[in-house]
């Protein structure tokens, strides 16, 4: 019997490592992981220099992890194991009531040289710097400005977790007190918490974004802040399309394969074909006097604001505004209306993408990706003649970069 056990151990071990390595060698490499929504590492370039300086061997470890056979299954095994250990989280993502996920740990920013990985505490100086940056820009941009800072899932859905809301309270304290009147700060936390606790589906469970319903509530607050309360469109003005099976970015990071999907809602007012979304980029061109000047040119444009192809794939949220672009405009045709509409400048991260359909009903939109480092907002305000400005920047971004501090 001992011999059988010894043989079983030896054979099983050899078979497992040989099979995995054979499968690894024989199976074709994947370029992209749908489950994780990211490009996978490929076989690193081999040169003797790269071998000598260690970069080859460092990258091959990534390659092995990314292209490993049954990767998705194994990632799930880890998620289950962590749950059995009562850890309550995996890869920095909390698992809460009803499959609610929320990122707890971030790469918090102190300076370009100093960032702390996997930390829930944040650098107060970074947050204050961003608040002051927004204040300063709002004071001198000459536009009526509204600032909307969507909290993180962990802040909104705190009732779903046993995780304390110490950090939420600290951040909220700084934000609630830090803004000048000109910045037009709207405090969304109490409103969203109330809705969330009442069981309303305002934040996605598997993604870090709000739902379209959540965006609608934010839209109402923005309109009120702009003094356009009377023009707010009621929910009945939109028809709702439900896109099932949406597994968001938080889900990908968490590796909790047993957590079910979200439903992504698309609200349409029925006049989408009147809108055109244009993606622009800025290049250096020769000006009239021969000197180089920056000039905007369109590289993509499409009707409406929705790109339906995304709805078939994993990154469904990308359907709004075609994912991430640095400079975009959403204009409505002028047919049958009295000339041009008022223009609104939006400085944003991806939370704004679901807000756009609502705001586009009232303004022509010029959208700058603040999260992507587009900070020279006043120049574009002048170029497009915008009269109002809206800042949409998630709390996570406020502690992981200082782009708002460089607004000008």
């Amino acid at each position, binding site marked *: *019997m*001992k*011999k*059988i*056990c*010894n*043989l*079983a*151990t*030896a054979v*099983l*071990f*050899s078979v*497992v*490592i*040989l099979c*995995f*390595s054979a499968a*690894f060698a024989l199976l074709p490499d994947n370029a992209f992981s749908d489950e994780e929504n990211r490009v996978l590492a490929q076989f690193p370039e081999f040169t003797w220099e790269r*071998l*000598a300086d*260690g970069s080859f*061997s*460092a990258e*091959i*470890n*990534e390659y*092995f*992890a990314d292209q*490993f056979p049954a*990767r998705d299954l*194994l*990632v*799930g*095994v*880890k998620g289950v*194991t962590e749950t059995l*250990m*009562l*850890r*309550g*989280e995996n*890869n920095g993502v909390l698992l809460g009531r009803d499959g609610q996920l929320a990122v707890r740990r971030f790469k918090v920013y102190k300076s370009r040289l100093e960032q*702390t990985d*996997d*930390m*829930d*505490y*944040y*650098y107060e100086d970074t947050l204050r710097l961003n608040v002051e940056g927004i204040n300063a820009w709002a004071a001198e941009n000459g536009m009526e400005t509204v600032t909307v800072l969507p909290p993180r899932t962990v802040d909104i859905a705190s009732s779903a977790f*046993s*995780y*304390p809301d*110490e*950090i939420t309270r600290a951040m909220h304290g700084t934000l609630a007190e830090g803004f000048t009147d000109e910045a037009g700060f709207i405090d969304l936390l109490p409103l969203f918490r109330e809705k969330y606790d009442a069981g309303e589906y305002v934040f996605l469970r598997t993604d870090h974004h709000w739902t379209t319903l959540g965006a609608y509530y934010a839209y109402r607050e923005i309109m009120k802040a702009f003094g356009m309360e009377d023009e707010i469109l009621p929910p009945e003005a939109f028809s709702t399309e439900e896109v099932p099976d949406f597994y968001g970015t938080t889900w990908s990071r968490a*590796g909790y394969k047993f957590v079910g999907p979200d439903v992504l809602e698309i609200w349409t007012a029925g006049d989408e074909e009147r809108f055109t979304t244009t993606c622009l980029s800025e290049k250096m061109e020769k000006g009239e006097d021969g000197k180089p000047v920056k000039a905007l040119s369109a590289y993509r444009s499409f009707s409406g604001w929705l790109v339906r192809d995304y709805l078939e794939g994993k990154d469904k949220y990308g359907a709004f505004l075609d994912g991430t672009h640095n400079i975009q405009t959403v204009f409505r045709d002028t047919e049958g209306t009295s000339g041009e509409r008022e223009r609104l400048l939006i400085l944003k991260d991806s939370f704004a993408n679901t807000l756009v359909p609502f705001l586009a009903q009232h303004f022509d939109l010029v959208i700058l990706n603040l999260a992507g480092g587009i900070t020279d907002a006043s120049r574009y305000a002048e170029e497009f003649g915008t009269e109002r400005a809206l800042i949409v920047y998630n709390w996570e971004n406020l502690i992981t970069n200082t782009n708002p501090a460089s607004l000008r």
Partner: protein
Amino acid sequence: MVFSSLIFLFAFLPVTLVLYYVIPNRKARNWVLFVLSLIFYGWGEPVYILVMLASITSAWAFGFPIAKYRESDRKRARVWMALSLCCNLTALLFFKYANFFIGNLRLLPFLTERLSPIEGLTLPIGISFYTFQIMSYTIDLYRGETDVQRNYVAFGAYVTLFPQLIAGPIVRYRDVDDQLTERRETLPLFSSGVRRFIIGLGKKVLIGDACSRVYEYARGTAQFHPTAAAAWMVVIFYTLHIYYDFSGYSDMAIGLGRMFGFRFLENFNYPYISSSITEFWRRWHMSLGTWFKEYVYIPLGGNRAGRLKQYRNIAIVWFLTGFWHGASWNFVLWGVYFGVLLMLEKTFLLKVLEKLPRVFRHLYALLFIGFGWILFSFTDLRAGWACFLSLFGGGVEAFSTPVVGYEFLRALPLLAVAAIGATPLPKRIWDGLCGCDWTAEGAVDEKGREIPVSDAPLGLRGKIFGVLTTVLCAGILLCVTAYLVDSTFSPFLYFIF
């Protein structure tokens, strides 16, 4: 390359096992081990293969004159030995300590400008380990405790043998010299090695790395909100982390050795159940302790030359032990700290402790081991001191914060598993259920002699648990693979030594 990487488990190891076992010839098998070990070693920094080969070659070549003269002309043999040791130690001193000495000399005002650190000098991995292994050959040869190894490949295979190459255990040449040419690979030895390897892998990846994450987090919170609770978490989880990391590595090394027919000495013997620091150092990194005892402490006179000299010898050994761990003052202090504790225990403390109830002795030992780890883990002495003060409320904002408290609660199951796993209890229970020890084959005593394994037949329960043992190993291997696939690469702590 490290054992806890996918490329080792699913590329290097299968290739090595296949090549090794398809070749029937002993000499050729040593070739396989030698060449593949060089690849294993050179994986990160291939240049340093040359440094290692130079060390191996010089020690091998100097071995001939030492052996030739050791009986006829002691003086001449001693010169050759000194030369050989010089070559080895020069490499270690240069690569590991040059910049440390330069950095400290630069603190002198008139040297600040004249000296500059050597750029691009990184520590060749494992140099501290293999240098000590090579030295054990040279010294034992001179002492007549082993024979000269004429076969370069066999000697090279001894030094480079990938299981113990980069993080020990430090295998003395005389403990394996016969095995280099006459080992016998058997099925019981192989499967015992597999089990031992998988246990080590699990200890490192599932428990050690998890403790490390808690430790990193607790340490990270200090720069936001220093609390006493986080400082205690730093101590507790670092204590567990380094044990699981390093003893897990030794388990893997011993297990891999068995897969290739080698029987290595144990390196850890449940160090955290010690009831004194003296006992701790008999249980922790035993191969290093033995090395210093054999090649430094006893040659200096050990405890036979009077009390005063004995204390001097202890001081030298512990200064060197600390310094061996790293070219930084915190390691030196760490060594000195234990040297002082050991002297105190020798003079009076052990006698006092013996009168105390057992639980206090354990608490005392654990507490001072833990304080030691603060010194060890903070290369920045000021930060280490701040952490130490935080334990007792010095410079903290509060005892704890809600978030730190949450983290501690969530880490409690891990803490329980890790704490129990650091005692002999789980193994004792499992062996009891099995009616035998499935990792006994290949075990050796402290002199390197095989410990015979009982071949009593298994009862029904033993048979069931025999199967369960295999299933358990497969489960651990699967879990480890899952963790490796889903995590960024985590190297071993002892890699830097």
